[in-house]
């Protein structure tokens, strides 16, 4: 079943003197349970593509349908709620609210969703345990390593029970040990819970884990390959 349907997506930046065609006509679908790496050299348009897909950056033209909803037809307030309920985000850095503990960061989004306290606390504990840092529930982000912070970010992204998780270069700031740990974690989540992951990366180790690799260059899809792993 297709979770995401993208059609003729274009993004042109006019802000500088020259027009930049960051994304130049992308049409692609993503299915439930896929583990996809969007790869390509720096500046090829990966971030721009993911941002439009995630309801963060408005396309110049084209459409993004998530679970049948054309997200760019929503009002900006509805769009924010849509993101909260349907998409989990893991960014490269600064993912967490620094003044909240790991547990509070995870709980935060469930709080926004209006989940009852009991459920929130139970799920937070489970999620942090499943990402391997159940013992750091009371630590603030500054007290955690980069890898641990990204794990909390994954747990938070999962907390709202989203349709899929978007991760923009989640391992870019991590050392190799932390990188393989995080990758192991995400692919386990994918296999165990059928969670759909889409990430942008130019990290070879990430690509090695991916079961689908979409290669972008100059804002266009160059290759779309699937692997049995």
């Amino acid at each position, binding site marked *: 079943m297709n979770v995401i349907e993208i059609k003729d997506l274009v993004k042109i930046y006019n802000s500088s003197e020259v027009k930049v065609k960051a994304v130049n006509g992308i049409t692609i679908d993503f299915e439930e349970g896929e583990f996809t790496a969007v790869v390509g050299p720096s500046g090829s348009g990966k971030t721009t593509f993911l941002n439009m897909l995630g309801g963060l950056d408005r396309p110049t033209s084209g459409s993004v349908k998530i679970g049948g909803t054309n997200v760019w037809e929503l009002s900006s307030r509805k769009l924010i709620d849509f993101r909260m309920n349907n998409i989990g985000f893991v960014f490269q850095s600064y993912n967490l609210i620094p003044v909240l503990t790991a547990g509070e960061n995870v709980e935060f*989004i469930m709080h926004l969703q209006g989940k009852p306290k009991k459920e929130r606390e139970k799920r937070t504990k489970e999620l942090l345990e499943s990402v391997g840092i159940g013992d750091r529930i009371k630590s603030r982000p500054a007290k955690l390593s980069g890898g641990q912070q990204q794990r909390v970010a994954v747990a938070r992204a999962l907390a709202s029970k989203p349709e899929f998780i978007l991760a923009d270069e989640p391992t870019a700031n991590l050392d190799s040990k932390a990188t393989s740990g995080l990758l192991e974690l995400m692919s386990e989540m994918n296999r165990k819970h059928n969670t759909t992951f889409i990430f942008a990366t130019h990290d070879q180790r990430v690509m090695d884990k991916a079961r689908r690799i979409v290669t972008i260059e100059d804002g266009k899809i160059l290759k779309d390959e699937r692997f049995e792993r």
Partner: protein
Amino acid sequence: MKDNFKIAWRNLWRNSRRTLITAASIFFGVFFAVFMSSLQQGSFENMVDNMVRFYSGYIQIQETDFKEKRSVNNSFKVDNALETSISNNMHITHSTQRIESFALTGSESKSIPAMLFGINPEKEEAISGLSKWIGEGEFIASGSKDILIGKVLAENLKVHVDDSLVLIGQGYHGVSAAGIYRIAGLLDFPLPDLSKQIIYMGIRNCQEFLSMPNLITSYVIMVNAPEEVSGAVTDLHKDLSKELKVYPWDELQPELVNLIEGKVASGKVVKALLFMVIGFGVWATIIMMMHERRRELGVMIAIGLQKFRVVIMIVIEAFFIGLIGILSGIAGSSLLVWYFVKNPIIVTGEMAETYRSMGFEPILKFSANIDIFITPAIIVFVIFALISLYQIYYVIKLRTVTALRGLN
């Protein structure tokens, strides 16, 4: 909502030094403004109290035309209705009748124009403590035929206690008035202007002198506290006959009111400048704070926090800073004000002489009027309300993607 407060409160202490410096600047502003207003207000209250006691009273009843033309022809008779109205008025503590007029005084050497007051000595004493100014001789009693004159006037006339003084004046409806009176005492007023031209005599004596039996020019009234003036005036007004008018002290002493208003205005300018500097300082801090957290705010909005919630969070944080500043400022200044209200500053040396020569006690009094504290608190509140408008604008304009990319 509880989350908003929690996050705002914790954010406050992320850069605790900056928060404290910002709160300290507000503390300083509130503290200074309260202290300044307290001193100013205190000295005004003291000034008004002095002037009102000594001269005008808080309220005066006069014949309608007396204010325009200070002539004994514009005098009036006190009837029972007026007496009843005054004695039944809850606000009024003291009242006394007066005649205000002019007379020419003469001795062998020269003649000098003077202000002549017909007074009830006992009642006047109760209001202003007139007898404390007696430098030589004795105070007069009701029914006395003697007079009191200013010390400088006596010097100019080269007369002494027990000497007789000739007074010539114009009585009621042009009747000529003349008399010889014994000087019972000399009044050593600190105000030279007063001392050189004032004469007091008993009111009956004065009515006789000016051929105006039972008539007076002014009924001087004191109330419990300045705040009760308007209430008393309203009550009196109801019972008053048409040819009489009732004046509160500020209408009787417009120069004093002008002086106070001028000083209040310049005080306001100083305080406005102070709060403007502080306001811009706080604003700059808030700009810095929000700018540093751009990416963080971007992440929050990205993961599903509505912008209005983001606004609430950062506005609460700013108001916390304001609140710390206001509360500590009021706490600190009220301690100081309380101390100075209990222990007014005694002015010494040359300044003290200046005060005395203007007819004031050489004392700096402070006021603890609640407005002194409320006004700066409101000003700080308004500053933060304006800053919160900026915060709202900032968040509305914040573009999630650019914030996430760490761009402007």
